[in-house]
């Protein structure tokens, strides 16, 4: 949809009127070694988080899940509102007794969240989904 817009010219001033776009939020869950991997879409949306929370609650009740990895490696932009949404996901899973790891956070987002001074004491980060799995495995060993 973006390609349709004339963005090639460095127009001095662009005032665009765009009709409401149809948002899509599909929650995709993968399970690997009893760990749930959730890739987050780009961009994230409130609708997505709402669906995610519902799906997670259902999943955690039924299946044996010993950890959750949020794969953030595709997400280019997240503001503090999105951070709080992720925190809420964590709160949910935390209450259910399942650890959650944020994997593959992009440098730009990390920098932004840091500048925004988000309260991150609860968060566990991992460089990749792989490392996240190792962290969760380590958890198990303890």
């Amino acid at each position, binding site marked *: 949809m973006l390609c349709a817009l004339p963005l090639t010219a*460095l127009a001095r001033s662009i005032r665009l009127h765009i009709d409401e776009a149809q948002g899509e939020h599909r929650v995709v869950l993968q399970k690997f070694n009893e760990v749930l991997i959730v890739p987050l879409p780009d961009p994230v949306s409130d609708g997505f988080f709402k669906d995610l929370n519902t799906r997670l609650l259902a999943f955690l009740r039924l299946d044996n899940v010993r950890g959750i990895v949020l794969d953030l490696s595709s997400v280019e932009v997240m503001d503090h509102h999105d951070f709080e949404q992720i925190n809420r996901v964590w709160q949910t899973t935390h209450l259910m007794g399942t650890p959650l790891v944020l994997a593959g956070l992009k440098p730009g*987002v990390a920098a932004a969240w840091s500048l925004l001074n988000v309260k991150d004491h609860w968060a566990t980060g991992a460089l990749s989904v792989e490392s996240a799995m190792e962290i969760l495995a380590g958890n198990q060993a303890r």
Partner: protein
Amino acid sequence: MRILSPQDASLAVLIVKDIAHAAGLGGLKISALTTAVSELTTNVVKYAEHGLLTVQVLERKQLRGIEVIVEDRGPGIANIPLAMEDHVSTGGTLGLGLPGTKRMVDEFEIQSTLGSGTSVRIVKWS
């Protein structure tokens, strides 16, 4: 660009990103700018019914800059200085995220009248 819904906000972010990229801004500067835009448009979606986003490419000597103005006719901000302070309190959320947004950009101006609306202007230089 008219912002009515969260999808508009996302689209706005993407547009600004494309423009910034075309203007030659570096990776992390684009991230900072787009996150700032995300913050501002999220505020619009949250607190005001709708808003207007204007993006413009500026040129100053050898530098290019992206200027984004986000305006709304929402409730406005009662106490701007307070809103611009970092909240260190426990349990509280970041509210409008304005101090952080200011840190992410090179120029930051805000005007707000209680009951009439808010306007924020940010510029990120290359």
